[in-house]
C-alpha cells in the first residue's frame, strides 16, 4: 500500500469514527433510567454500591420507606436533595421549591453521611437482615 493510500485510509477512519463518537455522545446517547438500578455512593471509607433495584423490588419496600419526605409525592426526591447542605448555611434548593425560607428549620436533620448510616444500618438491624459492618458496604 502506498503511503498516500495509507493516509487516505487513515483520514477516512478518523473522520468516520469521530462522527460516530460524537453521535454516540450527543444525538444517540440514551437517557439514564428514571428509577436507578444501582447507585454508587462515594465516601472516604470506600464507595458503597447500593442496589436500588433489589431493595425496591425483591425486598418489597415501598418508595416512601426511604424517600420519606414529602410523604405522598409522585416524584421521589433523591436523598442528596435534602441531606446535602449547601456551603454558607444556605438551604437546599429542594426545600425552597415547596417552602419559604422562613418555614424551614434544618435543626436535627442529619447530613448525608449520618442520614445514610442511620437509614441503612437502622433498617438492617431492625429487620435482622443485611450488612451492618463498615467493610461489608464500603468496598475499595
Amino acid at each position, binding site marked *: *500500500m502506498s503511503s498516500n493510500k495509507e493516509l487516505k*485510509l487513515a483520514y477516512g477512519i478518523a473522520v468516520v469514527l469521530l462522527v460516530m463518537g460524537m453521535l454516540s455522545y450527543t444525538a444517540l446517547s440514551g437517557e439514564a433510567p428514571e428509577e436507578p438500578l444501582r447507585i454508587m455512593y462515594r465516601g472516604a471509607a470506600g464507595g458503597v454500591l447500593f442496589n436500588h433495584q433489589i431493595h425496591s423490588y425483591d425486598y418489597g419496600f415501598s418508595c416512601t420507606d426511604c424517600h420519606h419526605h414529602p410523604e405522598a409525592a409522585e416524584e421521589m426526591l433523591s436523598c442528596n436533595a435534602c441531606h446535602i447542605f449547601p456551603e454558607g448555611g444556605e438551604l437546599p434548593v429542594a426545600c425552597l421549591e415547596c417552602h419559604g425560607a422562613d418555614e424551614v428549620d434544618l435543626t436535627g436533620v442529619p447530613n448525608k453521611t449520618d442520614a445514610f448510616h442511620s437509614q441503612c444500618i437502622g433498617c438492617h438491624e431492625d429487620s435482622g437482615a443485611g450488612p451492618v459492618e463498615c467493610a461489608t458496604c464500603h468496598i475499595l
Partner: protein
Amino acid sequence: MYNRKKFIVSHAPFWHDGSWIAQRSYNILLAALPAVILSIYYYGLPALGVVALSVSSAMLWELGFTRVSKTADTIGDGSAAVIGMMFAMLLPPVAPWWLIVAGTFLAVVIGKMIYGGIGGNPFNPAVLAYAIIGVSWWDYLNFDAAIVNYDLGFITMFPLALAKHAGMHTDLFNVQQIISSYNLTDLLMGRQVGGIGATFGLGLLLGGIYLIIRGIIRWEISISFLAGVGFTALLFQAADPGRYAGPLFHLLTGYTLLGAFFLATEDSSSPVNFLPMLIYGAAAGILTVLIRNIGAYPEGVIFAILVVNLINPLLDKIRPKALGKVT
C-alpha cells in the same frame, strides 16, 4: 558451475519481507476487535462511543501535532489508531468524552510524539496516559460506578477489587467463596466487569495467538508475563489461601490478558533479545501480582508495565555474545 552471486554479501537489511508498519497496526486493531465488539454488544452505544472517540481523537492529536511541528503526516502508519484503541480498551464502557480526549492527548502527544514519534517512546503511550488519568480522575475509571445503569445478569463488581477487599477483611468475607462465584466460563466469555477490551478472555487469547503467529508480537514477552502472574499468584495463594486469589483468577481478570498480548508487547518500550524479553515479561507479571496483593490498588498491570518500561533500556544491554574474537 556454482552460482558465484550467492557469495556476494551486501549491507543489512538483506531482504524486505513485504510487511509495513500500517499492516502491523491494522493487524493489532483486528486482533483487538473480538474483545471490543463483545463489550459493545453488552454495553451498546456508550461503549462504541468510547472506542470511536478514543481512536479518532488519538489520530487527530497526532495529525495536529505533525501539522504544528511542520513534519510529515504520520497517522497513515496506524500507530495513533492503535494507541487510541489500546486506551479505549482500558477504559470502562461508559466514560465522559473529555476524559477520552484528554487521555488520547496524553497518550499520543506526551506519550509518543514528543519523543520523536513512533519507535521513540520509552513507555507504552496508552498505559502512561491511563496512569495519569487514573491518578487525576480516579472516580471516572471506577468500573462499578460506570455501569450502574446496566442490568447485565452477571456480578456487577470488579472481580479484583472485590477479591482484594475480601482479603483485607477475612473476618467478614470468605475469599475463596467470592472467587468461586466468578466461574471460569464467565471470565472467559466476558461476563465480568472491567475495561472495554479487557473482559473477554477468550477473545484476547485468540487475538494474542493471532498476533504471535503473524510475528507481530513476541511470544517470549506474553508467555513470561502470564507465567510471572500465574507463578506469583500461586505462591501468594499457597502462603495464605484465606486472603489471596489463585493464579487462574489473576490470569483471567483485570488487565492481565490485555497486558500480556497488547500492552507489554508494545515495540518501542519492550526489549528485543530473547533473555531480556523473558526477564521483562516475568518482571511485569510478578510486579502485577505484588501490586494487586500487597499494594494499594486492586489492579497492578498498569504500574507494573510502566515500571518494566523503565528498566527496558537496561535489559537491552543484555546482548548475545558477538561472534568471533576481538584482538
